[in-house]
């Protein structure tokens, strides 16, 4: 599944207030650049949990899984793989 196709529009509209695809690259650090802050990360995780009907465990809430659109896509791919 192309998770990025769902995640990116959410990040664009909720954190960058735009539908311009060029506003953030898939490998841009969302945290370093301040696009996602400590309240934004919870909104993002809530969105992912309801969109894909999964639970993100506390130990999974780390920069390696959530720092870029690419890494979120890979993380969701691994979650789906682990469930099968």
């Amino acid at each position, binding site marked *: 599944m192309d998770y990025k196709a769902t995640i990116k529009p959410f990040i664009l*509209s909720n954190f960058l*207030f*735009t539908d311009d695809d060029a506003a953030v690259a898939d490998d841009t650090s969302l*945290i370093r650049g301040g696009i996602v*802050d*400590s*309240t934004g990360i919870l909104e993002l995780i809530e969105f992912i949990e309801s969109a894909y009907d999964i639970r993100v465990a506390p130990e999974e809430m780390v920069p390696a899984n959530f720092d870029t659109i690419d890494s979120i896509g890979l993380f969701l791919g691994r979650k789906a793989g682990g469930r099968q």
Partner: protein
Amino acid sequence: MTTLAGRLLATAARMPSAAAVSDGGCRADYATLAASAKRFAGLLQGHGVRAGDRVAVMLPNRYEAVVACYGCWLAGAVVVPLNAQASRRELSAWLAHCEPVVVLVESGSAEAEAAVAAAASGACVLRLPQQRAPAWPDSCDRLESGAAGAGDLAMILYTSGTSGAPKGVALAHANLLANVDAVVEDIGLAADDCTVSVLPFYYAYGASVLHTHLSVGAHVVLEANLVFPHLVVETLAREAATGFSGVPSTFALLVERGVLEGRALPQLRYLTQAGGAMTVALATRLRALLPGVRLHVMYGQTEATARLASVPPARLDDKPGSAGRAIRGVGLQVRDEDGEPVPAGVEGEVWATGPGIMRGYWRDPAATALVLRDGWLRTGDVGRIDDEGYLFLAGRRSDMIKTGAHRVHPLDVEEALLEHPGIEQVAVAGVADGLLGQVVKAWVVARSPGLDENAVRAHCRGRLAPWKIPRDVDFVSALPRTASGKVRRASLAGPVNLETAP
């Protein structure tokens, strides 16, 4: 010892292998930190930096930001730490105002590069890779004597980004040293302390946490941000940290997310809280989660270097809501509209004096004259002092918004919004928020129908730092104004809960 940099060199000679700063995988002892700072000082001199020249440091909290700060001081330069997440518009205003000879940026920072190109084209730009660079800087320039004296300027901290009038708080070495020593004494810091630092160095509170700990030979462990609060608690446990400092929203995050529950932090012995009023309820929950850990509730201002007052932990329960009593060297008074002191218990404006009071606003004698009088600083805060000298704040005279660890001047946001062709009038104020204290809200009179909230925020996104972008946008047909035509921000924001610490 007349400067913090001189003290760092003495500490490095006395205890060279003690841990000074840890940043991810990089751990620098005092000898390494001092040697790196000397190399950076030599590098600056090699680029023509002379005593009193400004050096802008546009870095997130990382080891090299500490090296750069002490390196500037060893070269006799004035360090200007700028918020690396600010927009090019804000950065440009600060750069144009402080005219740096050298600018230090992180590579790949498009906003910083654009600001330098626009506002500091004559400056020498040093670029630091995003990856940690423990051996940085790689310089063989010899450090010539450039040591600053206590009275020389050490640092400029910008508190407002309005393009018309950036406010740069100019602090001398003597200001920093005096405030560091008073805070060290108040908290009781020593060389065996270790703190985990999440507060940015380009704000007075974060700078105070850094320099107080380094001045006693303690260990400062950097955590880049609070996006994942449980990682901060893991770092506290792993490093056996003895202390932790935060603003109210820092502690609200730790408490609300439940990351402190069931965590054994046996080494932790003190917390410090400043940067706005923490509710009694939050302080009570925090203390219940960390029994035996002393909570130091503190109050201060950038214009006073950092701290002015502190509540001794033993008095938290019998002085609920107090901002504290004056720390060493500080005098506090409450005065009336004419600047005359009022009796204990009477409300008025808080004035402060002491060795930490700034030299003034950089290159702005008019703004300086408004707040500095006969060695006293008008804080703009309203409050009363009880008969034991404890200060109780009742609000602010100015409209400054405190959101998380950030200060936002409504004018900064209004100015950016008015650049949108569809906006005719605008007012910005802080509204209460459970986690962040306040969030930014804008009331907009649109020139044409069809302007929506996201378009307004998207416009801000390109002009303002993320935390200045209005969380709420209300479209209104007119703004409430006083008889003289001034917007009444206070009536827009509604009543504000100004309950302070426990």
